[in-house]
């Protein structure tokens, strides 16, 4: 779990730099080796890692437009993922998808750019798991903004009605772009909505990785045993803007500094050392290994070739 969180953090810090290449001094969203929108997940690692550590390759994850931490925790091929974000032909989608549209069927991972669009896909995967008689689970990740979409409510109704092995993780980072949860949501938190569907709701406070680990374990075990779906809402942090280049005039200036002081990765690290679960030497060597893995993925992406322009015409149909 620590590995997934730390990998994700290195990855995003590296991406923050890569994204700015070619965009300085004048920011142009379409310029540089990594063009287009970029939604980074720094700070939100506990939500993904605390859940996905309980999943296997047979379990499905449907992720969001801010997908890197979820993809990394699920074991998506890091080299191919990075190549995709660089628009290279060695990428997961041969350069056609980009950072919001990563598909790695080998580890049953997908994500998408439409808010709430992926929730019913995970419900469908859970339906298939049940029909096939497996104990596989399907997990959808969303932001708190998506919990006000029709897809959220319809999906939960179906999952509850059919008692599916489905878990919905709501990453409440407080902000749907510029609109706060308080101003957009009729209840204090989305786990309360579980009662409307007769399912289990869990609330994780203060971006706590250990608590996320604990409730996710319970929710996944319940789903595997056929005890039905759950919602987990975690109060998480978005260290950066909605997208890179977001002027963030809508949130108080000191909010981010306060969040960074409570960095969940540092908290987990302290816990691991205090509880003698790992030595600091072992942690250092793990971090070096992670750093090298991330760097290798970027080098692979940078050195890969761009697709032929005509490749745009392929893959519309099988």
């Amino acid at each position, binding site marked *: 779990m620590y590995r997934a969180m730390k990998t994700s953090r290195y990855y995003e810090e590296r991406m923050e730099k890569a994204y700015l290449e070619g965009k300085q001094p004048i*920011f*142009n*969203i*379409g310029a540089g080796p990594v*063009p*287009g*929108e970029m939604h980074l997940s720094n700070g939100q690692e506990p939500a993904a890692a605390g859940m996905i550590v309980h999943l296997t390759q047979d379990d499905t994850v449907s992720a969001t437009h801010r997908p890197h931490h979820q993809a990394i925790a699920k074991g998506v091929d890091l080299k191919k993922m990075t190549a*995709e974000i660089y*628009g*290279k032909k060695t*990428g997961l*989608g041969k*350069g*056609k*998808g*980009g950072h*919001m*549209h990563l598909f790695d069927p080998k580890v049953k991972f997908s994500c*998408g*750019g*439409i*808010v*709430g*669009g992926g929730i019913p896909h995970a419900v469908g995967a859970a339906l298939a798991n049940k029909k096939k008689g497996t104990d596989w689970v399907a997990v959808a990740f969303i932001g708190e*903004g*998506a919990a*006000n*979409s*029709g*897809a959220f409510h319809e999906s939960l109704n179906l999952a509850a009605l059919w008692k599916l092995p489905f878990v919905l993780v709501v990453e409440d980072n407080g902000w*749907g*772009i*510029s*609109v706060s949860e308080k*101003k*957009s*949501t009729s209840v204090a938190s989305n786990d309360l909505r579980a009662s409307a569907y007769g399912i289990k709701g869990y609330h994780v406070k203060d971006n706590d990785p250990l608590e996320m680990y604990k409730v996710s374990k319970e929710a996944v075990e319940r789903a595997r045993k056929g005890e039905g779906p759950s919602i987990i809402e975690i109060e998480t942090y978005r260290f950066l803007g909605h997208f890179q*280049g977001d002027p963030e*005039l*809508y949130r108080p200036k000191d909010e981010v500094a306060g969040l960074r002081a409570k960095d969940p990765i540092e908290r987990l690290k302290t816990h691991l050392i205090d509880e003698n679960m790992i030595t600091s030497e072992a942690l250092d060597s793990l971090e070096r290994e992670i750093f090298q893995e991330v760097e290798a993925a970027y080098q692979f992406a940078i050195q890969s070739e*761009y*697709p*032929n*322009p*005509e*490749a*745009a*015409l392929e893959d*519309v149909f099988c």
Partner: protein
Amino acid sequence: METKEKIKKLTGSKAMIQAIEQEMNRDETIFIMGEDIGKYGGIFGSTTGLFDTFGAERIMDTPISETGFIGAAVGAAAEGLRPIVELMFVDFHGVVMDQIYNHIAKIHYMSGGQVKLPIVLLTAVGGGYSDAAQHSQTLYASFGHLPGLKVVAPTFPKDIKGMLISAIRDDNPVVFMFHKTLQGLGWMDQIEASLGPVPEEAYTIPLDKANVVRQGTDVTIVGAQMMTVEALKAASELAKMGIDAEVIDLRSIKPIDKATILKSVAKTGKLVVVDEDYYSYGITAEISAIVASEGYQYLKAPVIRLAIPDVPIPYSRVMEKFVIPDSQDIVNSVKKLMTA
């Protein structure tokens, strides 16, 4: 010629804001709903500053409850208000299409003209900056296909303001598409066409008239928004080769201004239609069909259609450039037509 009229250079974004502000001052029944249109001012700068002027009652940030707030525009309009509703990207309309094509577009008709729905649906269109398949479409034709909706896609700031005022004053639902690159936003490509002279006072420009933006005699090029910009660029290149192109800026997708197109083709005998939307069943097909059925006698060569070749918009820059038509594609097509 000197006039008393005050004219300032504005970006597409500022032209939109001015139109909305003037209309909201004129008519208290107008209000706006949408995501991040309050303090943020619209992701593509359509409402910047309006929250400070009009407050949260009239500039309403909504949750991502899109079927809900676009459907709510129907009820509010039927009760006599004039809602302007923004849905950030045209690509996001999938989830609300029931409200749009089964309700907003049809209620006036189904009620035998009793219920009027003066709704403006604002949305940003267009690609060219690697935002990939779910954030780069134009979808002109998807909306133009539906009876009961007026659909406009102006290019230049002056038209943006005048057509937005017309849209707000119109008693029919109007889909007002603005192109991201033509908004003149600091964080996107900077292009000349996104800045232009705009009269300060309120004025209207009809919702059903195309505009001849360059007179010529040898070939007619029809486009909308960025394709008009590319067509003008191509026309300058062609002029250097001694080819005199006429460029028509469509402005209105529905109703489409047949007369202006036919008049031009009658003069030139040659037609290139260029579209940032998909090839099949799109603007290029529609205009070709209009000319084939109502102006066949004018044509001296087959019509050339340039559009996205029926693939989703790819992410990687090299592939995206390949699928979106540009001035070079237009120049090549015209050269081919001239030797035909």
